[in-house]
């Protein structure tokens, strides 16, 4: 299954330096068809930056990005729509692609916001807007989905339903998903591969492996890993306060 042909995007030791400071450094990962790769890590650990590097938004990066598809759906972490631009949900859905009306309805129905189709974007609540963003990203049936905290501001039951939907989409469309999430519990159950970031790749692997990792525990606390693991192993480095690596 895991042949070279299935790879959609591959990062090879990528890094980004801004104002003399490395936002991320030495990140390698790959997203394959039908697989969900999740980036976790504390605030400022470079999750969104890594996603944007994978998408080609940052130009002057270190390392290589190999992209094998151009059919990409993206849900950014932050997006602000200017009031000077009057935009309805259906105008926004057609932003990057010319879609048929039923493709549009289908996506909006899946994320539960079809009734908002003619509403102005500025009048939506945070959770509703998030659902529209997700609908827009999946409506074009992408090969690669990049979701940067796609369920932020969505109510609790909606959150679970949307994660199930994301899982379902990855199976149905056989698309690869690069997911950024803070919701560790959901991440650990729905993901194929977890990459734990803190300026660099702290650890990565299957959710179980990562939950057992000491670095992961140091970042997220003992509780976060208790549900899945009691195993411990020695780690070879620590972090100083500014995120630099201190060798033991």
């Amino acid at each position, binding site marked *: 299954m895991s042949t070279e042909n299935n790879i959609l995007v591959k990062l090879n030791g990528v890094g980004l330096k801004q104002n003399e400071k490395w936002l991320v450094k030495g990140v390698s990962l790959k997203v394959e068809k039908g697989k969900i790769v999740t980036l976790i890590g504390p605030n400022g650990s470079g999750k969104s930056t890594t996603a944007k590097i994978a998408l*080609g938004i940052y130009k002057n990066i270190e390392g290589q990005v190999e992209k094998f598809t151009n059919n990409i759906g993206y849900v950014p972490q932050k997006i602000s729509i*200017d009031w000077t631009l009057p935009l309805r949900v259906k105008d926004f859905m057609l932003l990057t692609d010319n879609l048929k009306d039923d493709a549009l309805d289908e996506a909006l129905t899946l994320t539960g916001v079809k009734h908002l189709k003619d509403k102005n974007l500025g009048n939506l609540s945070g959770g509703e807007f998030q659902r529209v963003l997700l609908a827009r990203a999946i409506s074009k049936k992408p090969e690669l989905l990049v979701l940067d905290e796609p369920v932020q501001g969505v109510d609790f039951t909606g959150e679970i339903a949307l994660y199930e939907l994301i899982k379902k989409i990855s199976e149905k469309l056989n698309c690869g998903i690069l997911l950024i999430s803070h919701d560790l519990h959901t991440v650990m159950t729905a993901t194929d591969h977890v990459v734990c970031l803190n300026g660099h790749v702290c650890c990565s692997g299957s959710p179980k492996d990562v939950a057992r990792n000491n670095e992961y525990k140091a970042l997220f606390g003992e509780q976060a890993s208790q549900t899945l693991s009691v195993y411990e192993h020695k780690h070879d480095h620590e972090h100083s306060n500014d995120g630099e690596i201190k060798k033991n």
Partner: protein
Amino acid sequence: MFDDFFIRALVAGIGIAFVTGPLGCFVVWRRLSYFGDTLAHSALLGVTIAYTLEFNIAVSIFITSSIIALILVKLEKKTNLPGDALLGLLAHSSLAVGLVAIGFLTFIRFDIMGLLFGDILAVTTDDLLTIWIGGALILLVLKLIWKPLFASTVNYELAEAEGLNPDRAKAIFTILIAGIIAISIKMVGLLLITGMLIIPTAMARNLSDNPQKMVIFSIIGGLLSVFIGLFSSLEFNTPSGPSIVAAALVLFIFSLFKIKQTIQLKN
């Protein structure tokens, strides 16, 4: 039919309104009104170059404004000055240099007022060709880059991530602004071109709830401003540019009542 100067002015104005409508929307959405102003100010320099080298005025303005736009991009990267300071610097220095250059060109009699504020008497049959062919070209190119330009206006990162090449669209759009300035300078005048781009669009914003509607209302607003402005220019012997822009202002004020109504309905 085009013997009558007034008919010529009217046909010219209609052509310009069709182009300023959609372009104006993007200028407002992308917050480029001072950028448009800067390019328009530099047009005077283009005019003097055209006279000195006996060159086509519209082409000369187009080239000068494009070069000023390029200089602006370079300065933004190379200096620590904020964007609005750079715009002011380029706008006024190019206007000043243009006026100084005119002072040296004593062998030509300039109608400075006409250049600054527009002159319907100055529109020739050749100008009509420039406006309609140039205008059609601008609209055609705008249609071609519409998708990436619009997407990146809403959100740059979305457009870039999903492969629409927004940087190229932005560069082309800058050239289109230089183009509309080049073809409308005789009619509207270089001090008021941005008004023609922005005021009908501002009116349209008050009346629309989606982008397509805003573009259409913006064109209609521009057409009405041209009609009302030119007729009153003829009637009261006022310069054409200010008359058109003042007419646009009146339409904008009317559109405010519509907003008031909607707000009352909402409450």
